């Protein structure tokens, strides 16, 4: 692909992403729902950590209540910013609307990713400050070394991107199994547990932590989240490399799935 061709192609997908971000901005109720959910989760866990730490029952890598609340704020920010792209793909496959999408001079999967990433970007921008404000209020201030939060920002963006790619791959499974929600359910629960969405991996037994390292989830959630525990450029770099590596693996898998999905396409009609 020539540089000019690449630039022209990028402009198309950027336009799709921008249109999607505009729509997400217009859907204020969806954004409000996610923000409220973020607030409720942070409030509940702030109380939990307060009780647990007051009893001295747990030590988490030297982190106190503020760090643990900020950890949760970062991991939830990453995950709540991801739209349900798998449902959009499943709906297109089920309804046959995919036929309409295929008549445009863009890749179907590329367009879905662009639209999902546009929405993700907007949600990251909106939920970031909201989550930070709630976390600040509940934690009573910044974490011990707030510089780590700056490192969490690019990692969070990459984390959400990886989640978009992964859930798009789940959506493509609709070509085989039609109903993708069971697969998404499993993926989501694995992300919760192996990624350390609510509890940092430091609290996990060794065997589970070792198992989790074979999956993309620690890089996706624990990696950005633990930046709340302190300024750790080395750990951030490791997470960055892991996110890029897993992103490549998932992107290759997505391209492979996309090719087979196209072959299975039997849009209804006659």
């Amino acid at each position: 692909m020539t540089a000019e061709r690449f630039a022209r192609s990028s402009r198309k997908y950027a336009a799709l992403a921008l249109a999607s971000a505009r729509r997400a901005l217009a859907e204020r109720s969806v954004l409000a729902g996610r923000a409220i959910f973020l607030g409720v989760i942070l409030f509940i866990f702030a109380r939990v950590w307060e009780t647990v730490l007051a009893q001295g029952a747990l030590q988490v890598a030297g982190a106190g209540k503020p760090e643990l609340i900020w950890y949760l704020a970062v991991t939830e920010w990453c995950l709540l910013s991801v739209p349900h792209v798998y449902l959009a793909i499943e709906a297109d496959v089920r309804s046959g609307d995919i036929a309409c999408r295929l008549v445009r001079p863009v890749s179907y999967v590329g367009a879905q990713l662009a639209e999902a990433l546009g929405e993700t970007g907007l949600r990251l921008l909106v939920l970031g400050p909201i989550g930070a404000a709630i976390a600040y209020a509940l934690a009573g201030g910044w974490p011990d070394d707030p510089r780590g939060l700056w490192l969490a920002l690019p990692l969070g963006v990459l984390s959400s991107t990886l989640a978009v790619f992964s859930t798009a791959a789940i959506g493509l499974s609709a070509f085989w199994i039609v109903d993708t929600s069971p697969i998404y359910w499993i993926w989501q629960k694995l992300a919760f547990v192996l990624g350390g969405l609510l509890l940092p991996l430091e609290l996990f037994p060794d065997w589970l932590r070792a198992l989790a390292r074979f999956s993309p989830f620690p890089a996706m959630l624990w990696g950005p989240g633990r930046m709340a525990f302190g300024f750790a450029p080395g750990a951030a770099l490791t997470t960055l490399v892991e996110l890029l590596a897993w992103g490549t693996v998932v992107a290759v898998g997505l391209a492979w799935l996309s090719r087979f999905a196209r072959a299975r396409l039997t849009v209804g009609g006659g």
Partner: protein
Amino acid sequence: MPPALALEHLRKTFRVPERAHGLAGSLRALFARRTREVIAVDDLSFAIAPGERVAFVGPNGAGKSTTLKILSGILQPSAGHVRVLGLDPGRERTRLAYRIGVVFGQRSQLWSHLPAADTFDLLARIYELEPAEYRRRRDELVASFEIERVIEQPVRQLSLGERMRCELVSSLLHRPEILFLDEPTIGLDVVAKATIRDLLLERGRVDGCTILLTSHDTGDMEGVCERVLVIHHGRLLLDRSLDRLRKGFIAKKRVSVVTEEAELRIDLPGVRRLPGASHRTELEVDLDVIGVERVVAAIVAGARVLDLSVEDPPMEEIVSAIYAGAARAELRA
């Protein structure tokens, strides 16, 4: 001049699962799924010249939409050759997409949450249109389709007729050389249908684009097209110009007469009286039995005629006659 599109011995089959009966059958199907082959298109060949406006008609399940999807690169054929504007749609879908427009009457290509104007802007990016040329084209189409008042509203708030006009504009923005239309007037009221047909006819003439239109509504083919392809069970049944189709398959005429007398008295062989009204008589003339000029002469001789018209039967009846003929031929075979 090479054809705008040509297909030779096109065949498309699908494998569809066979539903097992009962719980035991469903459980067995989990381990041994049975499928059967459905032939959607079977040995279909035809070519369309640039600028032609062709109707592609047939009953449900005849293979019309499947053929359209193969021609637009959405589906791959199981066998046969397809060339659209010199390209292989299955292999060169993206290149072809820049040169064709597709409208599915039962599905929307517009972003439902966006105003149509924003969709047009987005499509301009997707089709890589030069901004000034795009604005000229958009303004021309928006004026032609009279959608100035609605393009700032989100598409989901538009009526079906308004949405279909926007769909057509979005499919014409990039000046496609071929326009594929799958049931473009489905669900529309009589006025909206007539408007869409007029607009399609106008665009076909102004832009010179080739039109291939599928429809169950014979009004669409009469209003827009000059040639008709009739397909049945995935096979081409008939390929005629609209005029020849009328002449070849019309065995009857309709005569409408308005007379000063409340009732017209006429009793001729081959002439059947249809429901009419006082002073107005509707007659169906069987041309195999009697010439229409003899009927007209008898009417004029027997009454003071205020108005008289001779018409072909509606296109629905003609197409039904074609299907019925095919069915009889199948039964004989």
